[in-house]
């Protein structure tokens, strides 16, 4: 069975501060894992380190996608192995057209010999997805994330996910800053993917888990997963907070 396998992962910032202190997690295709935890516990670092952010150095442990060790690969190669990161704070790149960027990304991720997507086909796909996500404005002709509202940025990440169709995705707080309706739209989009996605969902709130029901819930504190359980664990945290676990 295809899986994303994280074994005893340790990661530090470039100036030597250890953030991840031995994270192990296995995500099989089709599973949804929620990671919760207090601020500063290392959730975002885990997301970024998984995808190869140059600001973090992996000092120990490994990351495998479908049996291939990707621990030391550059971010673009990790993406080509099927890993996607939904950013907590999507980055603005001015002057780079959203649709052209996405087309380049989709074509880059195609395997050799696979047919490239045409601009027109992509436009249609983007328009469909944008409709599902209730984008109020035309996204195709805008620059990548530039001038997007907070909610639009989050939706645009999910739109990219839906079109890039990775096998595994890490979504870093896709729900933060979203209103109830936007939350519904992105959840619906994720749930309506027509293939089994292995998903790591980082969140502070129980709210999104009403829509996207996790198979597993993990609590991450001080760079480690200290407790794992099912959806009930998330409800327990919502009531009692993290302090009881410390």
């Amino acid at each position: 069975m295809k899986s994303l396998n994280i074994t005893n992962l340790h990661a530090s910032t470039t100036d030597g501060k250890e953030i991840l202190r031995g994270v192990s997690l296995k995500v099989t295709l089709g599973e949804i894992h929620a990671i919760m935890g207090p601020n500063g516990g290392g959730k975002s670092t885990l997301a970024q380190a998984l995808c190869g952010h140059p600001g973090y150095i992996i000092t120990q442990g490994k990351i495998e996608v479908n049996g291939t060790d990707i621990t030391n690969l550059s971010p673009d190669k990790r993406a080509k192995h099927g890993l996607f990161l939904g950013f907590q704070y999507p980055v603005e790149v001015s002057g780079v057209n959203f649709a052209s960027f996405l087309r380049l990304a989709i074509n880059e991720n195609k395997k050799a010999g696979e047919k490239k997507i045409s601009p027109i086909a992509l436009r249609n796909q983007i328009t469909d997805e944008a409709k599902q996500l209730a984008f109020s404005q035309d996204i195709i002709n805008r620059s990548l994330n530039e001038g997007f509202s907070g909610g639009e940025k989050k939706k645009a990440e999910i739109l990219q996910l839906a079109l890039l169709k990775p096998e595994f995705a890490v979504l870093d707080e896709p729900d933060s800053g979203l209103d109830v309706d936007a939350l519904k739209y992105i959840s619906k989009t994720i749930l309506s993917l027509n293939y089994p996605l292995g998903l790591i969902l980082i969140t502070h709130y129980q709210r999104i888990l009403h829509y996207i029901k996790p198979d597993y819930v993990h609590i991450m504190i001080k760079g480690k997963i200290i407790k794992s359980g099912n959806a009930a664990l998330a409800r327990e945290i919502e009531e009692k907070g993290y302090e009881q676990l410390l």
Partner: protein
Amino acid sequence: MKAQPIVKSNYKFGFHNPEKAVFKTPKGLSPQIVQAISHFKNEPEWMLKLRLQALMIFQNKSMPNWGADLSGINFDNLYYYISPSEKKFRNWEDVPADIKDTYDKIGIPQAERKFLAGVGAQYDSEVIYHRLKDKWEKLGVIFTDTDTALQKYPDLVREYFGTIIPAADNKFAALNSAVWSGGSFVYIPKGVHVSIPLQAYFRINAANMGQFERTLIIAEEGSYVSYIEGCTAPIYSTDSLHSAVVEIIVKKGARVRYTTIQNWSNNVYNLVTKRMLIEEEAFGEWIDGNLGSKVTMKYPSLYLTGKGARGEVLSLAFAGRGQHQDAGGKAMHFAPYTTSTITSKSVSVNGGRSSYRGMVKIINGAKGSKSFVRCDALLLDELSRSDTYPVNIVNEQDVTLGHEASVSKIGEQQLFYLMSRGIEEAQATSLIVNGFIEPIVKELPLEYAVELNRLINLSMEGSVG
């Protein structure tokens, strides 16, 4: 990010043809040389006087001690005048084969056929080819080289020559006034809209050459013209000097857009004075792209002299290994309700240096004037450098003045973001750079925009690890 030797190994205009001059002054500069040039050109007496006076000014002015390092220029080791051909041509077929070959490689005749109203081509000191489509000629448009204009329209030339940029303006304007040769002369009659661009192409072929073209554009009331120039040179081990003067008069309600894509080879000092006088309700635009040269110092200026005059400068600089692009713009508000915008974008890579140097001046009485300056610099590595030298002089209360500046390293976050989507580092960098300059590129004719993107991608090839 690693820096690697690259940049102008990809310079596709680096070839040169054997030099076959028909008239060439000896190296160096003297009143005799200036007289020889003027005599050879059979000029009226007043022009010779103007040249000799300018030479004195040049010799008495010290080198600018601000801006780029010009210590590499040896004025005694340059040829100030080289005439490649005895005459000028109106038919492409008649241009001498070696010169034609050069322009064929650069792509001039194709460009003319495709999208231009007229073409001029200057080879070393002389414009050897000039062509204006009949349609425009019939409307009274003049597009010729400045030497021919001096012979055919002496009164017109005399009325405007040196009035916007006098010889005493700066040392290199003085040098140009003393030894000028070639350049374009454009006259657009009242109310005529030249709907497709005029283009001039400047080429230095000989080694140790000084090219001093002199361009004069007069747009009469309510007229419109867009003028484009491109510049290339071969790669020699010794330096050449390109020191042009461009004077433009935009009369009441007229509009002029002047676009330059400068891609000189890396041994050319490019020291150019450009100024536009913009009258009431008229609109003048400089689009100034600096990609090549060893050193460029160029600050296209807007002199807003009429009520409600508008001006815009879009400056793009790309500095690679061994290059210093000292570019920017000036806006002088001499009348009420004038507006100016200066937008500067610079990219530095492989140890290249780019500087923004700009000035906005609003005199007392220019009430209701507005000026906005924005300069953004992008550094692609640790070796490269960017500086900003803005000056604002405002002597009027009732004005709006804005200035925004940013310097960014190629963002680690931006790179990571793009790469996390499966895009390789080199491609991601190129996307970011092209996105950065997009606001200026979109103002260029399509052919130029495509060529610019190609040049920049070539220049960056191998610059990221």
